[in-house]
């Protein structure tokens, strides 16, 4: 029919996606593929940061984003959303985490809920591209390079010198004012 599906209104994804799904080979067929995705999504919600192959991370990322956005939109009192969470998170403590930790964390977010960083190949390993997939706002130290130059030693020294100079100047001005009075 190639007409857009109109029964459900879905908010736009905040990450780029492939136009077609990746067909991960699996003896259980499309159902098995979805179970593979489920393992990754469940681990991501549980550990908040994980290292996986790029293809799998990129595919599972969309599912995780959609799951979180559904949870934010409908909450935990909506039966279809609860069924979704029940399917996608086989470890049941993650269902509580999704609704009680992640929904408040991402409720007012304007950007994507997940991030992907390139990861190195550690010898010996396969030649598949590795990435680190993580939830935003996780408690781990950041992976991205620090872009601020404030902590550079000469910047710290310069800042300190500037502060000293200002202090000295204000002191002098105060003394001069006292003399005038």
């Amino acid at each position, binding site marked *: 029919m190639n007409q857009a599906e109109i029964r459900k209104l879905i908010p736009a994804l905040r990450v*780029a996606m492939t136009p077609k799904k990746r067909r991960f080979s699996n003896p259980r067929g499309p159902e098995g593929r979805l179970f593979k995705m489920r393992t990754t999504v469940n681990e991501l919600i549980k550990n908040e940061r994980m290292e996986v192959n790029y293809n799998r991370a990129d595919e599972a990322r969309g599912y995780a984003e959609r799951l979180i956005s559904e949870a934010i939109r409908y909450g935990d009192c909506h039966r279809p959303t609860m069924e979704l969470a029940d399917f996608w998170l086989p470890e049941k403590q993650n269902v509580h985490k999704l609704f009680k930790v992640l929904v408040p964390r991402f409720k007012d977010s304007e950007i994507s809920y997940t991030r992907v960083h390139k990861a190195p190949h550690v010898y*010996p390993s396969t030649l598949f591209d590795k990435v680190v997939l993580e939830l935003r706002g996780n408690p781990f130290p950041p992976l991205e390079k620090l872009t601020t130059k404030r902590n550079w030693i000469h910047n710290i020294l310069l800042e300190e010198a500037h502060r000293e100079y200002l202090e000295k100047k204000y002191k002098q001005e105060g003394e001069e004012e006292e003399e005038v009075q």
Partner: protein
Amino acid sequence: MLSAVPRRIFHTFFRKPPAQRVTAKVPPYIRDQLDSNTDNEQPLPHDFRTVYPEFLPDPRPEWRNRLRERLERNDMLTRRSVVAIPEFYIGSIMAVTVGDRNASDKTNRFVGICISRGGTGLRAWFNLRNVIDHQGLEIMYEMYSPLIRNIEVLRLEKRLDEELLYLRDALPEYSTFPLDMEPELLPEGAPVPINDIKVKLKPRPWHERWERKNLQGVQDLGLPQRFYNKAKLHEKPWEKYDLMMEYRATIPEEEQADIFHEIAPHYQQLESSRRQSKRRLAQTSRY
């Protein structure tokens, strides 16, 4: 040194990844910048996308072209200002008049039940089915075709199913409608009624395996148990959890809002043509 590594282990670790076709990714949707001069934030009716589904583009990213879609929407509005295309659903009974140079009065009128509807933009279409002289007839009409003179909705209603293709295998009385049928009018502002008729299918062989389609609008199919067992094997219960499949089949909410805000200035005209066609129906029914 590498030669010391056993062949099997070597291939495990230094295996080349399978060659992949690199396809461009679909970037996240960014909303249109609303122009403050024009009043873009007009309230829109909630049933906009059910009444005018063909204004939404085809969701397949490979086939998208924003400029083409916008131009098509303009053309559709222009065509709608000439020929009133009424609100209809699958299961509605309609009459369509098209120009036909081989007919004696240069027009051809067909009455039938809408059994399927599809296509987007200027290529939107619907199928009408009727049984005339014991012969099942189906005609596909393109909604924005210049040949179309008039589209009337004789009975506005919905059915329990999304497609009524099973009427091909049903008894003929379920798809027989008189050609001189009178238009039936709904009271102003009433919801579209849902006809919960259960159709009786003819015995097999059929065009499709209807026992696998989870049809709501048919009576008991009366098949041996082995057919239902086979149908159970072909069910895909995991598809309702496939969030990305669902997403790839839809246009995101923000984009729909932008599209309908774009045609909102023409909404009065669309509505008035809808009302005019209703009034014309009322007049024709009076005489």
